[in-house]
């Protein structure tokens, strides 16, 4: 479904991503792991079209999306719940979802929103409150619901458990497990390595902008470089 080949991304003179290749198959959950500054978020933002790619190719569903504007990548079926959640704090929960529904035909949008409110009852309770007033965990739910609303083929989630209370971390991973059970394809960036490996099928470990290790989670669980990434995070 998603194929990244030899991706390079620079910020000015600094090369943040130096030749990363990875692929995500339909129905699979892939965890992108690594220490802070390893290039995980940059890789994700490059796939989403928000970071300019220096070289390499990104293919989504068989068509090249390298250099495509983020609007078109999202419309092609990539949902993004980015690092830091980035919900619109001054807008209500309803308005946050309204914007996410803007690219879906109106009747389908109503249906999708209804389904999501059943999955995230808390968002229904807080529907007309300003999103900035939600707790961290609730904001993460909103960020994921927003990414899911148009019915993406691929969901990219960046550090969903960061800064959350342990209980909320549990419900975030429960949610990811349920989404996986529903057949959602997910590319997950996560600093909580053991939890990420529980939910993922494949893992890709980045170090200094390069792939240090990749493979099925069963092979990764005991590996030295995973532990290194784990400790560094």
């Amino acid at each position, binding site marked *: 479904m998603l194929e990244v080949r030899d991706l390079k991304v620079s910020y000015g003179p600094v090369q943040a991503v130096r030749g990363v290749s990875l692929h995500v198959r339909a129905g699979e959950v892939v965890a992108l792991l690594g220490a802070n500054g390893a290039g995980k978020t940059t890789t994700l933002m490059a796939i989403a079209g*928000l970071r300019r790619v220096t070289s390499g190719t990104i293919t989504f569903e068989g068509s090249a999306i390298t250099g495509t504007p983020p609007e078109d990548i999202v419309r092609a079926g990539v949902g993004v719940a980015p690092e830091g959640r980035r919900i619109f704090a001054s807008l209500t929960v309803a308005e946050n979802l309204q914007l996410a529904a803007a690219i879906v035909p109106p009747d389908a949008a109503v249906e999708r929103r209804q389904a999501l409110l059943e999955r995230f009852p808390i968002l229904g309770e807080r529907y007309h409150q300003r999103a900035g007033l939600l707790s961290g965990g609730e904001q993460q739910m909103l960020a994921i619901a927003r990414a899911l609303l148009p019915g993406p083929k691929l969901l990219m989630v960046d550090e969903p458990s960061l800064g959350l209370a342990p209980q909320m971390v549990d419900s975030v991973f429960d949610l990811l497990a349920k989404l996986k059970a529903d057949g959602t394809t997910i590319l997950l960036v996560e600093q909580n390595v053991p939890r990420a490996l529980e939910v993922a099928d494949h893992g890709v470990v980045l170090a200094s902008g390069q792939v240090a290790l990749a493979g099925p989670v069963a092979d990764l669980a005991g590996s030295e470089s995973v532990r290194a990434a784990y400790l560094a995070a």
Partner: protein
Amino acid sequence: MDTLVQQTVNALSLGGIYALLALGLAIVFSIVRLINFAHGEIMTVGGYGVFVALATGTPVLAAMAVGVGVAIVAAVLMERVAFRAMRGASVVTLLITSFAVSELLKVLFQNGISARPKPISLPQTITGTIQVGEITISTMSVISITVTLLSLLALTIVLRRTTMGVAMRAAAEDFDMLRLLGVRANTVVMTAFAASGLLAGVAAVIWTAQRGSVDPLMGFFPVLKAFISTVLGGLGSLPGAVLGGFVVGAIEVFSQAFLPTALAPYRDAVVLTAVIAILLVRPEGLIPAAQTDRS
């Protein structure tokens, strides 16, 4: 008493024009971080639109609609031709680009139309006065206050109720995230410019109707005051821009009306001193913008 009422009407009328212009500047600034120095020229285009329409025998109301229409077109074209290529550039780069656009247009008006003011004559029904008991109020002030309030109300409804309005508020907070939801950046920016053009066009129609003439530099002073209003209100804050516009208008009108004659030449200095005094107490402006800057 009646002087006070009359001056209050004048203050609302002038403040309303500043508020319309300041709001247009604030909408664009909040989304693309552009301080559009060429906003005054959008207003001037609107004024010439009214002039040309009237000169070719268009009825007054239709001519005013033409003025607003060409201002919208001018604002949208300005974005497409000059500012789109500069999207994401630093605030200073954008500001200097807008200086260039402003100067180009001014020279174009001076050489292409005329450096002298072009008279605009409006029917008596608009330029006359209304008598309310002891108090005489100019019809134009009443029209201008009404139109200003209606425009502000309409824009508020659009920003609150429509998806494009919600998107514009979201863009002010985090433009990249909005794009990650698939909402097209170009559409949002174009709409923001169209809204600022609409507001400048309404201001231009009121301004030219009050002045009775159009000239190449007509947009400069009102937009300068509108800049001051946006800073006073809180740069990037929409309610702040509107409030700032009314405050600047009020300070200007009341200082002119009630200051001793000897101080009259220093009117603008008085206005600016008052603004500085307010900013010393509230450096973020009257209603600070609530945005998270991610760049």
